[in-house]
C-alpha cells in the first residue's frame, strides 16, 4: 500500500530505537584474540571478545500486534536484567549463571518489526553486521519467525524464537540455528480439541476466522483436522489479511453460514476487533466462541467478551499456585511493570533464560556448541514446570494450559480474567518431529 511504501522509505522508528548497548556493541574490535581454540563462525568469536555480548531484538511496536510485541519486549528486558544481575529466578533455571552469560554482560538493541518479515530481517541483519549480535530474537508474527529462521541459518547466528504459533516455524521451515519455546498450532488444537468436543458435542459445524499467513492457515488446518475426527465440519472459513480495518463483511458470511461454533484464529488487535464486531453483529448470540490460541490482553481489551470462552494458552498468571517459579516471575514482573504478565512476556523471559543456561552448559558462545547443548534434550525448569527441547526439530515440549473466561461476578480482582481448566502435559500432544517436514540444516 502507498503509505507502507512511503513509510519504509522514511524509515519510521524501529531501526533507530536501539539502546546505548548498540553503541557499545559497535565499538568492539573486529578480529579479537580469543582464548578458545575454535574456528570463527557467524559473529563468533568477534561478538563476545570484549566484556559484553549483544542481542538483537525485533518485536512489533506498531501495527496489529503492537500490544503483544510490547509485552514480549518487557519479558526480554526483564530476563536480560535478571541475567546481568544473577537474579534468583534465573539461577533456578540456569544454575551456573552468576552475572551475565559466561561472565559477559548482555547488551541489546531493539527494532520495530511492525510484524513484517522484511523489516525484521533488515533490522537483524544490521544487528548482526554492525553489532556482531551473538543471538537474535523476534516473532509475534510467525511470518517474521520463519524469515528470521532463514537469516539465522544463513548467518550462523542463533535465533531464539519469540512468540510464534505456526506449525511451520519448527516444522517445514525449521533450521539448525533456530529454537522455539512456545508450542505448535497443532499442539494447541490437540489440547483444546477434546475440551471442545466434550463441551459442545460431536458432529458440529464450525466457522473459522483465519488471518492470511502461515500462523493462521496452519492453526486452522490443525483445528479442522482434529475436529474432523469427532465429525465436525467447516461451515465457512473466512480468511482476512493482517490488520483488516473492519470484519463486518466476514462476519456477515459467518452469521449466514449456519455454524454452531465460531473459531477465531485471529491474533493481536485483529482478534480483539473481530471478537468485538462478532458481538455487534449478534454472531456471539447465535454461536459459541472459541479462541484456539489465546491472545495476550484480549480479555481486557474486549471488555469481558471472553467470559465463558475456552482458549489454549502458554501461560496464565494464576498457575503461580502450582508453580513456584511462576510466582517469582509474576512478582518480579508486576513490581517492574505494574501489571500481571501475559504469555508473551513469559515466553520471552523463559526463552532467554534457557538460552543463557545452554551457553553456560556449553561453556562457550560458540554456536555449534550451544546448539548441541540444546540438542541434549535435557529436562530443564521453566515457569510451567519441567520441559525439554526435542533434538530433531528444536521444539520445546511443554504443557498447554486450557483457560476459560471468568464471569465478571467471579473475578477476584481486575486481572482475574480466566479460570485454568486444565494443564495438559506436552508429551501426549506432540506430533512426530518430522510430521511437518522438518529437516534441520548444518552446524557450519
Amino acid at each position: 500500500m502507498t503509505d507502507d511504501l512511503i513509510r519504509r522509505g522514511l524509515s519510521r522508528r524501529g531501526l533507530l530505537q536501539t539502546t546505548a548497548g548498540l553503541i557499545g556493541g559497535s565499538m568492539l574490535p573486529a578480529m579479537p584474540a580469543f582464548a578458545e581454540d575454535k574456528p570463527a563462525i557467524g559473529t563468533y568469536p568477534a561478538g563476545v571478545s570484549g566484556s559484553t555480548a549483544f542481542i538483537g531484538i525485533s518485536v512489533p511496536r506498531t501495527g496489529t500486534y503492537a500490544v503483544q510485541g510490547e509485552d514480549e519486549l518487557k519479558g526480554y528486558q526483564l530476563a536480560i536484567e535478571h541475567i546481568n544481575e544473577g537474579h534468583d529466578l534465573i539461577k533456578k533455571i540456569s544454575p551456573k549463571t552468576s552475572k551475565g552469560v559466561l561472565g559477559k554482560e548482555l547488551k541489546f538493541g531493539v527494532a520495530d518489526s511492525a510484524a513484517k518479515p522484511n523489516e525484521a530481517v533488515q533490522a537483524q541483519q544490521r544487528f548482526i553486521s554492525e553489532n556482531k549480535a551473538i543471538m537474535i530474537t523476534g516473532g509475534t508474527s510467525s511470518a517474521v519467525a520463519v524469515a528470521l529462521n532463514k537469516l539465522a541459518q544463513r548467518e550462523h547466528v542463533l535465533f531464539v524464537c519469540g512468540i510464534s504459533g505456526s506449525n511451520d516455524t519448527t516444522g517445514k521451515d525449521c533450521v539448525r540455528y533456530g529454537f522455539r519455546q512456545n508450542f505448535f498450532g497443532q499442539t494447541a488444537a490437540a489440547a483444546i480439541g477434546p475440551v471442545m468436543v466434550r463441551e459442545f458435542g460431536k458432529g458440529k459445524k464450525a466457522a473459522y476466522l483465519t488471518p492470511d499467513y502461515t500462523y493462521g492457515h496452519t492453526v486452522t488446518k490443525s483445528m479442522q483436522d482434529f475436529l474432523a475426527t469427532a465429525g465436525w465440519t467447516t461451515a465457512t472459513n473466512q480468511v482476512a489479511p493482517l490488520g483488516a480495518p473492519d470484519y463486518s463483511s466476514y462476519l456477515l458470511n459467518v452469521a449466514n453460514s449456519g455454524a454452531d461454533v465460531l473459531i477465531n484464529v485471529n491474533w493481536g488487535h485483529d482478534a480483539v476487533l473481530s471478537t468485538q464486531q462478532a458481538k455487534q453483529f449478534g454472531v456471539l448470540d447465535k454461536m459459541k466462541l472459541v479462541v484456539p490460541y489465546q491472545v495476550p490482553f484480549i480479555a481486557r481489551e474486549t471488555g469481558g467478551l471472553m467470559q465463558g470462552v475456552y482458549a489454549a494458552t502458554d501461560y496464565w498468571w494464576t498457575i503461580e499456585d502450582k508453580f513456584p517459579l511462576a510466582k517469582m516471575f509474576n512478582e518480579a514482573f508486576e513490581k517492574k511493570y505494574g501489571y500481571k504478565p501475559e504469555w508473551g512476556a513469559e515466553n520471552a523471559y523463559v526463552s532467554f533464560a534457557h538460552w543463557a543456561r545452554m551457553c553456560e552448559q556449553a561453556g562457550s558462545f560458540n554456536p555449534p556448541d550451544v546448539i548441541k547443548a540444546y540438542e541434549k534434550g535435557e529436562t530443564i525448569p521453566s515457569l510451567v514446570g519441567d520441559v525439554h527441547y526435542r533434538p530433531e526439530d528444536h521444539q520445546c515440549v511443554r504443557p498447554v494450559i486450557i483457560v476459560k473466561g471468568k464471569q465478571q461476578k467471579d473475578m477476584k480482582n481486575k486481572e482475574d480474567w480466566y479460570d485454568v481448566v486444565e494443564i495438559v502435559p506436552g508429551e501426549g500432544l506432540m506430533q512426530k518431529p518430522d510430521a511437518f517436514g522438518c529437516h534441520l540444516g548444518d552446524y557450519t
Partner: protein
Amino acid sequence: MISWPNLVSQLFNGLALGALLALISSGLTIIYGTLGVLNLAHGAMFMIGGYAGFVTYQYTESFILAVIAGSLFVMLLGVVMERIIIRHFYHRPHEDQLLVTFGLGICFVEIIRLIFSSQSQLVPPPALFQGITNLGFMFYPTYRLAVVGIVAIALGALFIVLYRTRLGMIVRAGIEDSVMVDSLGINIYRVFMVVFGIGAMAAGFAGIVNAPVVSLTPGIGDDILVQTFVVVVIGGVGSFPGAILGGLIAGEIISVTSMFNPGYAYVMLFAAMTLVLVVRPHGLLGVQGRE
C-alpha cells in the same frame, strides 16, 4: 452459489461503510480542491477525533459531548496546523506537501501511542442505539444503522455550508480560481484556514462516530487513509458530490467482493479505481482541466 440474504446484508454493509468513507473523503477533497494540498495527515485526524472523543467520554460519559469535543478538537488542530505549517507549503511542490503532511501524520500517531499505548480503547455506542435490529430480511447492529443516518445528516450540513452560504460560494470559487477570488478583495488565506479546519473536522467527526464500531488504536487511520484516497480519485479530486459517490461505490465494492472472496476486496477496489482513471482521468464527477 449466491445466498440472497447474504447479498442483501453485504449490500447494506457496503452502504454503511460507503457513507463513512464518503464523509472522510469529503474533508480530504475539500482541502485538496480549495488549497491544492494533499493532506496525508487526514487519516491521523480521523484517529485523533476518535481519541479526543474517547477522553471526553471518559470524563462525561456522554456520547453526544464526545462527538462534539472530538470534532471541535480536530477542527482546532486543523486550524493550528494550517496556520503554523501548511500555509508555508501552498506554493511549494506537491512532493513537499506530501512529505510534510505524511510526517505530521506519523508524529500524531506516535504522540497518541505515547499517551494511550497501543491497547484498544472502547467507546460504547449511546444507549439509544445499542443492540441489534431486525430489518425483516436480516439482523444488523443498530448503531451501524444509526451511523448511516448520522453521516447523512453531517454530509447534508456540509452540503448546505458549501452550496448555500457565502463562505461556501467563496470556497467553491476558490476551487475554480483562487487568484481571482483574492483579487476580488477576499482574504483567501483566511478562507483557506477555515476550509482546512472544516476538512479536518469532517475527519474528526467520522473518527468519533466510527469509534464504537471499531475499537480505537493509534494506527486506525492508516488503512482508512488509503481507502479515502481511492474514493477521492474515483469520485474526482476536488468534487464534493464525487466524494459521496466514490465513497458509496468503494463501500459496495469492498462488501460485495468480500462475500465471494474477502482477499480480493482491495484488489477489486484498486481495479475499479484504475478503470475510472482510464475511462475518466478526472474521476466520475471531477472537474476537467483542473491542474
